[in-house]
């Protein structure tokens, strides 16, 4: 289960605040995954006191609303990433960044599909730079893109470009994953699927033996 409480002293009208919160949730908490199980209790409550002395925000399109939205996105993304980092049994955070999609929504679906893949998660735990599993998870996300436009990088290491696998330093790529695991760091997976302007991120964690151990012992 994930729970969150968000507070701000911004002055914002109810309908605007509710819209902004859902947008931020979609860009943060709804883009994380640890084990693919959706809880019965997931909740975010966001309260705005209005005590900052700022002018009232009454439209989602005004400059002040855009400023507040970016801050709200940042706070929720910071918390969401902390949840994925702390995933049961995890040794590292996986950050999937997708660009070139037709829209933010499409990019988000592809990113979360990759972050959710048990095979990708297990490969990261096994320190295996398995671009094939990443490509497959992007491909079954339900978003159409041309396979010849697919580009995949693991950190700074380019593994696939224009849909073609590239020769790469397997040992260096594996070491990159190993180091992230040893330091509980971050594994960045960069994916481009075309020339569109849609981009989005998703976050997950690797899948270790400890996940099974924890959930075999903790009843739900």
């Amino acid at each position, binding site marked *: 289960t994930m729970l969150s*409480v968000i507070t701000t002293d911004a002055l*914002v009208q109810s309908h605007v605040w509710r819209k902004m919160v859902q947008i931020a949730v979609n860009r943060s908490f709804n883009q994380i995954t640890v084990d693919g*199980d959706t809880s019965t209790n997931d909740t975010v409550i966001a309260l705005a006191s209005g*005590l*900052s002395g700022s002018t009232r925000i009454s439209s989602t399109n005004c400059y002040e609303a855009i400023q507040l939205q970016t801050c709200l996105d940042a706070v929720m993304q910071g918390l969401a990433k902390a949840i994925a980092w702390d995933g049961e049994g995890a040794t590292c955070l996986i950050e999937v960044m997708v660009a070139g999609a037709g829209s933010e929504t499409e990019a988000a679906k592809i990113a979360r599909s990759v972050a959710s893949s048990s095979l990708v998660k297990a490969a990261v735990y096994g320190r295996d730079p398995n671009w094939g599993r990443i490509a497959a998870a992007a491909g079954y996300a339900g978003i159409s893109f041309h396979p010849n436009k697919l580009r995949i990088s693991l950190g700074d290491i380019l593994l696939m470009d224009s849909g073609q696998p590239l020769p790469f330093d397997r040992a260096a790529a594996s070491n990159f994953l190993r180091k992230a695991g040893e330091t509980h760091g971050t594994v960045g997976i960069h994916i481009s699927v075309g020339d569109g302007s849609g981009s989005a991120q998703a976050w997950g964690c690797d899948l270790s033996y400890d996940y099974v151990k924890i959930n075999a012992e903790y009843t739900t």
Partner: protein
Amino acid sequence: VSLSTSESSNYIPAAPILLPQGPWKQIPGGVTAAEGFRAAGIYGGLRAKGEKPDLALVTCDVDATSAGAFTTNVVAAAPVVYCKKSLDVSETARAVLINAGQANAATGVAGYQDVIECANTAAKLLHMKPEDVLVESTGVIGQRIKKEALLNSLPRLVTSLSPSTEGADSAAVAITTTDLVSKSVAVESQVGGTTVRIGGMAKGSGMIHPNMA
């Protein structure tokens, strides 16, 4: 059992918060960083094991504009159903009461009555309307809240409320279950030429694949 809020934050370390880059500055305080908010986290005897804090309360000194996002799981927990109804009838709220230990999910009518009783009692102690108090629960699915323990702890929880960073930190610890770290963050930024603060806390480690609306 008595445990102060300052001791509560020592139970588990704080998570590294990986804030994106932007026109904001990270500041201390979590949910209490913004003007008008207080928080507390105490051990109320709800957990099956250990004495880590398990009850948290966040309050606002004024009517706060409220928003929520909730699981789209059809089998929604009683506090989720309660909060959705509350937000449907009111655009403001003043408090969020959170317990760890029992999820109060799949607990039927009795579980829902527990939420109402907890919210009403908290509202009375806080001198608020019952609909001003929202509720979140986490823990074992299928178990009702240890209501007597919660109700007995509420007076101490209310008197522990603080606008300090310690208050926010203790609340962030109290909502954790299998988490190895607590999650709390706050930022300060300019919005329309005025300094605005946004803070938050979260919990989560397993059973994580949110689809909230």
